[in-house]
């Protein structure tokens, strides 16, 4: 038996949707428990007073990356069947900036706003309304945006193929980057907390 199970036809669309719902609820639960239903905690990220978002996201990236790497090494996952979303450099850069801007202003990203809504936070409800209006406006504007959205296409590119190095090298580099990031984030948090205490 080799993963991804869905791509290998172990189960069909219905089961995959049920599993997606179960995994989604689990994801939302842990986001909520990590405090990510609160826009204050999320926005604190951008003022370097609470780097939990950065730490949780990078922990998830490192865990998933190491898991996929070793499972595929053991022959339990066919990494070539795992979806890689294609890169459109410029549109995705701009999209990232827009999302970041919305994150700072609104205090949520789309996923965490759903988490916030589930515990009845009104700011999250407003944010969710904004997300859907934004999707609608984007959909209406799409004919004018289509050329840009499809521009600077790089195909399905991964770091290792782009840099021309082994996957293992990228794995190691990302781990080191994450650990340095955790250390740096904690140092900044402590420094700011101390300054707060002195003030």
């Amino acid at each position, binding site marked *: 038996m080799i993963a991804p199970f869905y791509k290998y036809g172990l189960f069909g669309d219905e089961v995959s949707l049920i599993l997606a719902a179960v995994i989604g609820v689990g994801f939302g639960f842990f986001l909520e428990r990590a405090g990510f239903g609160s826009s204050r905690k999320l926005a604190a990220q951008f003022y370097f007073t609470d780097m939990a978002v950065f730490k949780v996201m990078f922990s998830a990236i*490192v865990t998933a990356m190491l898991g996929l790497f070793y499972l595929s090494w053991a022959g339990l996952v066919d990494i070539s069947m795992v979806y890689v979303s294609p890169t459109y450099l410029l549109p995705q850069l701009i999209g990232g900036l827009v999302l970041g801007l919305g994150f700072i202003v609104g205090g949520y990203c789309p996923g965490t706003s759903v988490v916030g809504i589930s515990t009845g936070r009104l700011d999250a409800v407003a944010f969710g309304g904004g997300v859907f209006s934004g999707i609608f406006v984007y959909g209406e504007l799409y004919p004018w945006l289509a050329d840009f959205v499809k521009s600077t296409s790089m195909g399905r590119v991964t770091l290792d193929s782009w840099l021309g190095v082994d996957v293992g090298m990228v794995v*190691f580099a990302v*781990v080191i980057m994450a650990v340095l990031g955790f250390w740096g984030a904690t140092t900044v948090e402590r420094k700011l907390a101390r300054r707060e205490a002195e003030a």
Partner: protein
Amino acid sequence: MMNRADPRAWGINQKLAFLAIALGALALIGSPSPGGAVTINTQELADIVESEVDHVTVEELADWVVQDRADYRLLDVRDPESYARYHIPTAESVELRDLHGYPLYHNEKIVIYSDGGIHSAQAWFLLRAEGFAGAYILLGGLDAWKDAILFPELPADATPDEVASFESRRAVSELFGGKPRTGGGGTANPAEIPLPKVKPPAAVAAPRARKKHHKEGC
């Protein structure tokens, strides 16, 4: 003050960071080859054939086309003339001899069809041998597509259930430019009914350049 700021002992964070670094360093030694060379496991292939998980039915395919799904590739392995006469909407024409080197991704769901099933089965083996684990055969090929999707038949002595399900099949058939056959016996053999024009119906995308809906990812 934060409870994690104990400088003497290694907390859980430090231990996990160390574990991550160790696993990361170990990753430098050996890299799995992503979708590279494969050895053909004939027993595994035989098991797949036996268990019939390598099939996509014409009904499933019709659903995908109608939903304008972009998570599959449909390969028509008949000769280009037959393809020009008629092909299932969204199909790409590839002859068997051109299959090697045809731009396909290892992580795609690839559905192959021919008139019956022989050429598609051969193409399936070629693709599997090259490590395309997502290769599927359209069960019954274009013949089954004509019978079940383009020209579905309602037998004269149909049960109410059959009549009910025929109504939806009629709609699908008309969407694809086909012609449902009702009344049993008297109607023509599918081979004699003219095939719809290659231009697919308006609701259905033409054989298109690769367009991926961002169905996956966050």
